[in-house]
């Protein structure tokens, strides 16, 4: 019941916030609820047996019997990592959002915070679902809170952006729906219908049936992730959302796309995944380079950060479809790391935009002089985003690159171009906004306050800690990746001429 409780806690909290009388109490209530969710997720982590791996803390109940739908939850290394990403990010995002200037109110209203809590609860549910139908329902349900977070609480152009977001994602969802129905048909044909992942994995699919179903799922996830050329909704949505919404959308909800690729595309359709892998890898590499080039050219802070994510999602998808355990472990780790560094970037640029009243990069200049902490945070977020060693994303990006390289040297090398382009978009952003003579227009800006620093510091600490010691997390991730890799059956190419190992035994003692 622990996972149900974990998902319900913020959902119920959100409901209370939405229905109870308005008032300032709501802000601290939201922080408290998300904080409690974080604590509970740590309890889940403590209960999770890392060495055993596999699905744990499972719950299962029949829900819609004729359709074989179950209310079934469970976490493995993959799900747990993303649940933790969700529960760690949300309280600090909420904390950062407390004074957000909204269209109808100065400071966060209870409705705004309520949608965030609901979103957190749904996200946790999505990452824990082990029944395809349940997953699908929750996956689609996440659209509702984001729709309102953008449409009702966003900035200029929010209505159009919200509709664009919704339509784009619904199209993906409908394609997936067809595949979900298809799965039912096949499952019913084979005997008792069941949407449980474990049952579906036993299905014997024909080659082309499998490929069709794969495409159905993959399209929805590729829109979510977002993968080139299905990425255009993301910068539009982020451009009209509040920073907190952007963080939840890009750092957490978009991960459902890459999560789904591993869990469902690779897990249920391994043959088709291998079949599609060359095409997907090429699209991913295009995403990396294309997103980075767009980010270099972007003039809107919010769009810029969103576009860097297009590039980073390219890395994640590349690692998944390179199908090696090295690159997949890198991708799963990357999902978390990207969440952290993108959170820092969205939140810092959010403060910049709120204070300056403009999101145009050119509207800033020399801000470092009056706001050294803000500029320091932007730089840390940026360096993390460009995968500087010593910061969390480096290890994950490297694993993706070397894992990919071991199978596809050319694609791996082109992907590595991302490290040069990332340096350009990050340092250009920093140079144009923070350095140079102080622009007279930014005179009214002040440095980050205590609340903002308190919201950002945990991310910075985690980024550095995971940069130097990611192993505990990798230990959680690896068994899940090994399992998927076993299902797909491609694995890592052996080193062509392995270096002798005996040498290292003696050299640890000196020689």
């Amino acid at each position, binding site marked *: 019941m622990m996972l149900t409780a974990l998902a319900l806690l913020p959902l119920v909290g959100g409901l209370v916030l939405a229905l109870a009388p308005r008032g300032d109490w709501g802000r601290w209530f939201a922080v408290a609820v998300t904080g409690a969710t974080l604590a509970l997720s740590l309890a889940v982590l403590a209960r999770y047996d890392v060495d055993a791996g596999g699905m744990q803390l499972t719950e299962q109940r029949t829900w819609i019997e004729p359709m074989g739908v179950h209310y079934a939850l469970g976490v493995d290394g993959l799900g747990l990592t993303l649940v933790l990403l969700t529960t760690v990010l949300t309280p600090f995002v909420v904390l950062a959002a407390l004074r957000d200037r909204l269209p109808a109110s100065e400071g966060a209203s209870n409705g705004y915070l309520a949608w965030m809590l609901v979103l957190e609860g749904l996200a946790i549910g999505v990452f824990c679902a082990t029944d395809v139908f349940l997953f699908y329902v929750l996956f689609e349900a996440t659209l*509702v809170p984001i*729709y309102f977070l953008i449409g009702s609480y966003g900035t200029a152009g929010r209505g159009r952006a919200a509709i664009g977001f919704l339509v784009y994602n619904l199209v993906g969802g409908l394609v997936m729906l067809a595949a979900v129905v298809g799965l039912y048909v096949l499952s019913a044909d084979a005997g008792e219908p069941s949407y449980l992942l474990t049952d579906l994995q036993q299905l014997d699919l024909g080659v082309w049936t499998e490929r069709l179903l794969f495409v159905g799922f993959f399209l929805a996830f590729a829109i979510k992730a977002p993968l080139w050329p299905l990425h255009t909704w993301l910068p539009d949505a982020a451009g009209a959302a509040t920073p907190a919404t952007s963080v939840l959308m890009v750092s957490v909800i978009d991960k459902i796309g890459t999560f789904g690729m591993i869990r469902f595309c690779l897990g249920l359709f391994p043959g088709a995944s291998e079949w599609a892998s060359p095409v997907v890898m090429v699209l991913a590499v295009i995403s990396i380079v294309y997103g980075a080039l767009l980010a270099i*050219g972007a003039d809107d802070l919010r769009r810029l950060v969103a576009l860097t994510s297009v590039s980073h999602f390219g890395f994640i998808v590349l690692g998944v479809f390179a199908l090696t355990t090295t690159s997949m472990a890198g991708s799963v780790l990357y999902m978390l790391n990207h969440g952290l560094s993108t959170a820092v970037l969205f939140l810092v640029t959010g403060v910049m935009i709120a204070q300056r009243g403009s999101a145009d990069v050119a509207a800033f200049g020399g801000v470092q002089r009056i706001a050294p902490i803000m500029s320091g945070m932007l730089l840390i977020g940026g360096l993390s985003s460009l995968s500087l060693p010593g910061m969390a994303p480096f290890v994950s990006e490297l694993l993706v*690159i070397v894992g990919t390289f071991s199978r596809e040297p050319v694609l791996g090398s082109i992907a590595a171009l991302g490290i040069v382009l990332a340096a350009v978009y990050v340092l250009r952003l920093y140079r144009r906004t923070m350095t*140079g003579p102080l622009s007279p227009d930014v005179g009214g800006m002040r440095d980050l306050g205590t609340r903002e620093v308190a919201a950002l510091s945990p991310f910075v600490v985690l980024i550095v800690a995971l940069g130097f010691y990611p192993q505990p997390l990798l230990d959680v991730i690896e068994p899940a990746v090994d399992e998927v890799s076993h299902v797909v059956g491609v694995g890592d190419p052996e080193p062509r001429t392995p270096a002798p190992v005996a040498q290292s035994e003696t*050299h640890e003692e000196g020689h």
Partner: protein
Amino acid sequence: MNDVLDTAWVLVALPLAGALLLLTWGKESDRFGHWIGTAASAASFVWGVVLFVALAGRDAGDRSVTTNLFTWFDAGRVRVDMALTYDQLSALFVLLITGVGTLIHVYSIGYMADDPRRRRFFAFLNLFVASMLTLVLAADYLVLFLGWEGVGLASYLLIGFWQHKPSAAAAAQKAFVMNRVGDLGMVIAIALMLAHLGTTDIDRVATGVPALSQGVVTALGLLLLLGACGKSAQVPLQAWLLDAMEGPTPVSALIHAATMVTAGVYLIVRSSAIFDASETARLAVVAVGLVTLLVGAAIGCAKDDIKKALAGSTMSQIGYMTLAAGLGPAGYAFAIFHLVTHGFFKANMFLGAGSVMHGTGDDVDMRHYGALRTAMPITFFTFAAGYLAIIGFPGLSGFWSKDKIIETAFGFNVWVGLGTLLGAGVTAFYMTRLMVMTFLGRKRWRDGVHPHESPAVMTVPLVVLAALSVLGGVMLLGHWITDWLAPVVGEAHHEELPVPAIVLTLLVLVVVVAGVALAWATYGRREVAADAPADREVGWWTRAARHELYGNAVNDALVVRPTGQLVRGVTAFDRQVVAGAVGGLAGLFRDASQGLGRLQTGFVRSYALVLFAGAAALAAALLAVTIA
């Protein structure tokens, strides 16, 4: 094994702790922060000496100690240990980095005394020292890369230390991005090692090299060379170094002369197993070194900005080291020897230049100097020691180290040898020019400038470095340095020289004297104009050298402008074609839903409708299937 040599991590930990302390401590530490930074660096130096003595006390065959601190990451097929190797090569670097580093910390106390952000400056210096030590102590290419990027970050922060100057911010960005191009080579090299050898452990890679195909070894060598070119400002990735002089002068001395920029040479020497196995890669290294040593020297001849003249010289001297490293086992030890002596005399001269700037109100134009020897006697004498060392005055450190490289180059190929010989002559020319324009001749001081000697906190480091510049050659006594490094880089087998070594030495001296004489005739005997002649009044050769042989123009034409065009093209393409095509479909839906929305007043209902339609379709489908 419980051994003092297992504590090499302390070397890194001390300055790292200093950096963290200084970055997180509040304003109250402004008064004494610089002392914390200096103490951290000095403590690391003391520990370096202790370890060095312990290492020297061991048998020659037992002087490499690898300590595994913890597993950095282990996932899939990649396992990287946070492991340090303290051996003959890293021991020398530790002393150079912490020794020169500490002197420069001390010097900076005076040089940065009036800067309100001095504490942060020392934090960055400490960060640099910690990263550089990680780089040279690393037992794994990925740990090395951690240090490699760490020094890159410190370099970025310190070049751009005066961020309010757009030129400084631009220079910092340029340095980082150009270095990243080199890093691309490093990352692909690492991927290649893992794909073929399954490890990035430096020792294990070395033992695995013989099994690799020739193509892979050569690729590894060339990729590592690309990384080295970025970090060490070698052609074609040289253009960032001159701009990097925007940083405070102590930074130029420590990072952009004595230590960081030599990391590329270190990388090549540390990877000797790879380069030994590929003649093509070695040849590429020699070519890069030779071209850079001449390009840098040419630039040094034409710059009036004292720091840029010295930066050109740094490029050129690193070119010598790179070339020597490309000569294989015959040259590795001499590359390192010259690297160390250059660390002494170039740090000395950069700090001297800083002292001159300190005394002249931060003027860097040598045409505004002249006759400073009387106003700044200590700076003059210490600078003179560095000057004599770099041109190779007999007996001084640079004489021994450069002579050895030239000799080895002749043993490799006469034309390469002649190139290094020419370089020695040009070095003598540009350094004499610099010396004369700065300290000799007549005063060309600007109004209101009253040059004065710097405080003791700045001159004492100068004196120490001057002494090292003079005496650094002792490392060659009894072939100490070659014997010391032999277990790491292999034994040199002597090539047959076309002429006896002593004749070669005399030849070098003749060329150096010619260079000095030519410079004296041009700048010493004639009046130096207080304003530089315009570009059209000078010969094409001078013009080209002034513009750094058009390196920036080449980069602009080949990389910067095409990338800019690509960015604009992709942005337009994204807006019109991709968003148009994909968005067209979405737009269709959007229009439809907006139509509904208008009917029902609001988006929410349209969403509910779509969702309902979806659910209905699903239910119908399920029903149909169940009945069937």
